[in-house]
């Protein structure tokens, strides 16, 4: 048994024993759970993939004369400006103005909010075009200028939903190709897309949220951010297997971090043909090994993690809830799986290779005493289901 402050003292003195969620598997196999729990202080988890519910608040500072920006575009991508005078929110999936979307199906979706965010983190100049109706104290009605992240007072990423605990495996059982947020799916189940870091994924290594909660310090694309709330659609009451792994999406996290501290390698605009734009993010979360139970959860391995196969042509679109079966991440990562006696090639939208890189970076930062673990202020809900939207005929 260890406490957060004991672990932090070891980290601060540069003596903490830190392993990645991949390394810990063999380590515990070798040493046994009890000895390993005594020795190991922190296990680092990580993930890198498209996380659509992401975006950032930007504050431009005031022009002279002043302006209450009521509509704003960054590199021609609309930013939400229904907040204070020179604050905007740039969302990851916002399309560029005049993008034909899927009018010429399938659309290309070359540039959007996620790409603007990538440019900002990379230190590139971005164009601001703003309009206003003008007021007595904010007389300026129009502005066009170029800025980079250093010109901003604040650039804070605020992501309502990141790090889905587990995720669907997308296939297409129809006889026509479809374009989805899980990529191009060829007809008659000729390929499958998965999207999780599996055994490295943060919430799969702490399936019951014993250490990850509101206030947990996280590595968000290189910045030290934190969990500010449960993620939207957080639905932990999903059925689980003997390792606590949920059979579907389940838990999610809302994350925030200072974009000025981020590394552009881990903040990347995403274009999905026929679907839209998004933002791929790298997230690392340290799990303090307070006891054996917490350690045991971090030893989850790809073969223990199953994800549901869903037909995105019909069952996803029509919300039927039908699952065609389950596959483990060990099978998925082999490149080919068998579904209903048919060989199916697998692809992924989550980069295991980048997740490994992040788990290693976070490990070094903790070993060198630069990254402390934090006790949650409030735990995440452990019982909660996801509600559908009821489409009512009227307000009765």
């Amino acid at each position, binding site marked *: 048994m260890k406490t957060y402050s004991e672990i932090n003292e070891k980290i601060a003195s540069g003596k903490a024993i830190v392993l990645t969620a991949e390394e810990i598997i063999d380590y515990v196999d070798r040493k046994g759970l009890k000895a390993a729990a005594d020795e190991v202080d922190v296990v680092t988890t990580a993930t890198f993939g498209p996380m659509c519910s992401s975006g950032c608040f930007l504050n431009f500072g005031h022009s002279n004369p002043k302006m209450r920006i009521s509509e704003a575009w960054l590199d021609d991508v609309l930013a939400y400006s229904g907040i204070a005078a020179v604050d905007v929110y740039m969302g990851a999936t916002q399309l560029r103005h005049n993008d034909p979307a899927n009018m010429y199906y399938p659309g290309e979706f070359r540039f959007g909010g996620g790409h603007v965010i990538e440019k900002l983190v990379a230190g590139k100049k971005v164009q601001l075009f703003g309009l206003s109706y003008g007021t007595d104290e904010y007389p300026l009605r129009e502005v066009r200028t170029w800025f980079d992240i250093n010109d901003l007072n604040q650039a804070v990423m605020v992501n309502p939903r990141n790090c889905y605990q587990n995720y669907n495996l997308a296939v297409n059982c129809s006889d026509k190709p479809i374009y989805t947020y899980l990529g191009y799916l060829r007809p008659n189940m000729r390929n499958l897309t998965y999207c999780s870091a599996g055994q490295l994924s943060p919430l799969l290594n702490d399936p019951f949220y014993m250490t990850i909660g509101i206030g947990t310090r996280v590595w968000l694309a290189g910045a030290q951010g934190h969990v500010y709330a449960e993620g939207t659609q957080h639905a932990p009451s999903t059925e689980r297997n003997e390792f606590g792994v949920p059979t579907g999406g389940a838990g999610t996290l809302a994350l925030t971090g200072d974009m000025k501290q981020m590394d552009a390698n881990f903040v990347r605009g995403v274009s999905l043909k026929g679907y839209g734009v998004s933002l791929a993010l790298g997230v690392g979360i340290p799990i303090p090994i307070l006891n054996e139970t917490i350690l045991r959860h971090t030893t989850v391995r790809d073969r223990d993690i199953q994800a549901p196969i869903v037909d995105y042509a019909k069952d996803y679109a029509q919300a039927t809830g039908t699952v065609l079966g389950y596959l483990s991440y060990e099978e998925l990562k082999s490149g080919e799986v068998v579904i209903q006696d048919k060989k199916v090639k697998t*692809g*992924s939208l989550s980069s295991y290779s980048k997740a490994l890189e992040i788990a290693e970076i976070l490990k070094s930062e903790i070993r060198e005493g630069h990254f402390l673990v934090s006790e949650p202020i409030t735990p995440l809900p452990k019982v909660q289901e996801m509600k559908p939207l009821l489409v009512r005929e009227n307000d009765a």
Partner: protein
Amino acid sequence: MITKKLLLYFPECETEKPIVYKLVKDFNLMINIFRAKVTPDEEGYLVLDIGGDEEDIEKGLAYVRTFKVEINETNKGVRWDQDRCTACGNCLPHCPTGALHVPDRGNMKVVFEATRCIECLSCLRNCPFGACSSLF
């Protein structure tokens, strides 16, 4: 018998000559064209495999060089930008020859082997990060 993968660049003035026909007929070469964009009055590109005896290939290429056609044996028509690639693996099931592949399933790093690429361009359509691009 050997096979070479080449990228030929045709300046505007050379697009009207039946160079490939000559390679087959006069130099006894087997030609397998992967991709071509040759428009009269415009520049053109041709990516192809040339197969045959080494000597015939040398003679054939010497013939091609008598025109202003540029022969490029290293840079093919499809480029993979390692820095743009995040190794997500979305391209893998769509690459028919395994030119884009994962040699080590332990670290899941993606590599591009240009010699196996037949320039179907499916990676261009499927890469969410724009890591793959085409010269033409």
